Each structure stands twice: as C-alpha cells, then as structure tokens.
C-alpha cells in the first residue's frame, strides 16, 4: 500500500501514524501512572485498615481488663501504657462530644463566647411535631450593658419589646420568651405549609408573616358540595393552636350543624392539618 503512494503522502501518512503511535504511548504512560497511583492508594488504605484493627483490638482488651477489675497499668509495657491512656482520654472526649450534641438536639442555646468574652452568640432552634425547622442566631454584646448586636430574628416578632422587658435583668427569661415565640411562629408556619400539601378541596385563602390568622376554604361533602370558610385566629403568639375559630357558609344550616360545631372544636384542639385530615377521614370535607 505504501509503495503505491506519493512520497509526500507517505510522509504525511507516516507522520500521522507516528503521531498515533505517540498518542497511544502517552495513553499507556497515563495508564501505568494511574495504576501506580491506585496501587499506592490501596497500600496506604490497607495500612490504615490494619492500624485501626490493631487499635480496636487493643481497646477491646482494655475494656475487658476494666470489666474484670484488672490493673490497667502494665509496668513492662511503657509504650502500651501510653496507648492505653490515649484510648481512655479519647473515650472521655467522645463522651463529652456526645453530651454537647445532646444539648444541641434538645434545643439548647449553643452558647458560644466570642471576642474574648466581650460578646456571646446564641442559637434558637425551632421544631414542630418532631421535625426540626429553622435556626435563628443572635450576638449579644456584654461590654457595659447587654445589647443585641446582630441577629436574624424575623421582623414580625416584637424583639425590642422583649428586650426592654427582660434583657438587662433576666437574660434567661429573655431567651426563653424569644425561644417560645420563635417556636410558636415556626409551628404555625409549618402548619400552613402542611395544609397546602393536603391538596384536595382545601385552599389557603389568607395567611400572613406572623401566621396569626389563617383563612381556609373547604368543600363540605353532601348532596350538593358547599363551600365553607374557616377562619382561625391565633390570639396567643406563644401558642401553635388558635384561640378563636369561626365557620362560615352560604348554607346557614351547615355552619350551625352539630357536625361543623365538632369541626370547630377540632380546629381549636389540634393542629390545622391534623384537624383537616380527620375531617376528610370522617367524610365531612372533600
């Protein structure tokens, strides 16, 4: 084939073939480099795995000794003794971290000192029905009087009013009040969100930033489906349940019926989405 080509073509073809060979060579090179890397990685991981196995066994032996009330200190084995101490201290450190995490999980303020104690940062964790929701933060300046320097508390809450009440004389009461209000707000907001997810015939007509009013439209089941307007007013901002519920419908007999009187109570006693689910299950609404 080559002998039939022009010298120029041979040259070009030859060049191309050389390039191809060179390219493949590079690939080969890459491949062998990669192989080396993998080999090394596997080696180091194997070493780490073996070290961990050894450590874990040593700790298990330690645990056994402690259980049997044997002396932990072994005079012949100074190095081993150091390892033992390290294990014990590591165990203690782990326990302390668990305690820290526990304070965090039960809704603690996670207080952190900043600027050499001149200020502190606190976190307000919120949750509703087991679901953790937003966390809000605040920095308090402690130099002369207690001052709020930074925060991301929703503006719909009367923060200045709370601060005026308690900030100087009772910091814990201030934190508790804020936590209560934030959690109640988060709870009410979550309920609106859950109601919207209910779909079906339930429609959220009105809500607001503070979530202290919720107007819902439902369709009552019956021979003719009728629209019912439920207004939930949350007069106590530290609570997730409404203080007043009114039921309105074009069909007066409906809103006065025992069934809907019961539904009114449901709204007062349980979270909105729970009440609606019950009503749907009982065939009261669509």
């Amino acid at each position, binding site marked *: 084939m080559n002998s039939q080509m022009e010298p120029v073509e041979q040259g070009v073809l030859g060049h191309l073939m050389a390039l191809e060979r060179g390219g493949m060579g590079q690939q080969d090179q890459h491949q062998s480099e990669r192989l080396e890397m993998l080999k090394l990685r596997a080696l180091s991981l194997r070493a780490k795995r073996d070290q961990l196995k050894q450590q874990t066994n040593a700790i298990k032996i330690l645990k056994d000794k402690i*259980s049997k009330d044997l002396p932990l200190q072994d005079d012949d084995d100074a190095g081993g003794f150091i390892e033992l101490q390290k294990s014990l201290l590591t165990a203690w450190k782990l326990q302390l971290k668990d305690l820290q995490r*526990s304070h965090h999980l039960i809704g603690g303020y996670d207080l952190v000192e900043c600027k050499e104690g001149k200020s502190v940062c606190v976190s307000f964790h919120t949750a509703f029905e087991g679901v953790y929701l937003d966390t809000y933060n605040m920095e308090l300046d402690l130099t002369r009087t207690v001052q709020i320097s930074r925060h991301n508390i929703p503006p719909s809450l009367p923060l200045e009013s709370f601060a005026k009440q308690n900030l100087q004389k009772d910091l814990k009461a201030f934190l508790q009040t804020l936590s209560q209000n934030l959690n109640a707000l988060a709870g009410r907001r979550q309920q609106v969100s859950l109601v919207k997810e209910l779909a079906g015939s339930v429609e959220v007509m009105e809500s607001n930033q503070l979530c202290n009013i919720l107007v819902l439209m439902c369709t009552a089941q019956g021979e003719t489906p009728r629209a019912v307007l439920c207004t939930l007013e949350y007069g106590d901002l530290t609570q997730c349940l409404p203080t007043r519920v009114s039921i309105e419908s074009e069909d007066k007999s409906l809103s006065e019926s025992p069934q809907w009187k019961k539904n009114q109570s449901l709204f007062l006693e349980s979270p909105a989405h729970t009440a609606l689910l019950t009503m749907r299950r009982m065939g009261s609404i669509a």
Partner: protein
Amino acid sequence: MEQKYEDEIQMLHQEIEMLEAEQEEVLRSIFIQHGDRLQEELKSVCEEKGGGGAHKHALSKLNTEIRELEKDLRRQTEINEIALNECFVKTLHKSERKLVQQLRLAGHCSVLLFQVEFAVTEIQEGDALLRRVTELNIVVDGVEFKDFSAFVSRVEDTKDLLLFFRTLRTFSERCEERRQTFQHFQRLQACETVGVLAEDDRISIHTDLVHVGTDVVSVVSFAEGVHSQGRNVIVL
C-alpha cells in the same frame, strides 16, 4: 488490573468506616459501663509526666481538648438550665447522607428529674440537613401534677422533644416559686396567724374565719401586705 485495585480501594474504604464505627462503639460502651471509675483514673493520667516526647504531645493535646469541652459543657448547662448526668448514644445507621441514632439522656432541671429516650434521623439533602425525631419516651420524677402527666403523654405522641424541655424549664421555675411561697407561709404558720395547706396547683390558706385558695403569685404579695398590718383575716 485497574478495576481490581479500584474494587479493593472501595472495599477498604468500607472496612475502615466499619472499624471506625466499631471503635467508637467500644469506647462509648467503656464509658457507659465504667464512666465514673474511669474519670478518677483519668484525673491521675492527666497529671502524669512520664512517656516519650511524641506521645506526651498527643496526650497533652487530648487533655487540652477535654478541658475545652468540659468548659463548654458547663456553659451550656448553665444557660440551658438543664443538667445532663447520663448520655448514651447508639448509632444505628451511618452513611454519607444519612445518620440514625438512638439517645438516652438522664438529668435534672432544678429539682425535676427526667429520663428521655429518643431516636433521631438526619438526612443530608443538598445544602439542607433534614432532621426529625422518630421516637420519644419521657419519664419525669418529682412531679405529681395530673396536668403535667397529660402534657408529657401528648408530647410523646407528637415527638415534640424541644417543646418538652422548654416547658420543663418553665414548669420547674413555677415549682421553685411554689416551694418558696410554701416555705414563706410555713414561717407565718409558726407565728400562728395562718394555717397553710399545699395541694396540687394551689396553696390554701386557712384563718379562723376564711378558707382561701388562690394561685401562687397573688397570694404572696397580698398575704405579705396583710401580715405586715397585723391582721388575721384574709379576704379575697
């Protein structure tokens, strides 16, 4: 050939994860069973000056970390008004994006003792961490009030762990106020001006003429006023 190594690397990663988890569990179990005794041993360990340079450095580093953690815990205990005496953590599932743990906590809030067991699931979804309580069991000691028991049952059903502790704080404050008021009236009783009976959520004050029961706060201020005027009758 490459594949063989890649497979081995993946397997080693998993083994290492498992070993680390196992090590954690054994360390935790050491503390569960022998925590108190070990703390004594550790105190002497921390003061020890023996050992080689590198080891000593590792030990002193651990020491410092432990001091810091203890200091932080004291801060949290103080500001949260919740003291945790026992803390058992069990990791049921741990992967890159999901963590399931069971926790058992015991402690007190002022004079109220509690034991709380709960399970928590954390799922990493992109930037957001979704966390929820999936089981909750609560036992409270030092409280005989029916209302509080009903509250605890409700909170267990709704898994509202945070609400429980918030309410426990408020409740323990009221219990403390009640106790102080009761003490105050016991002192008055010693002067034979009033008879005091503390029951459930009210304190009843008897005098020769009137039997009165009311809520804690108003009683204290009113009765103080009456007592200072030297009268024996409390009228409300």
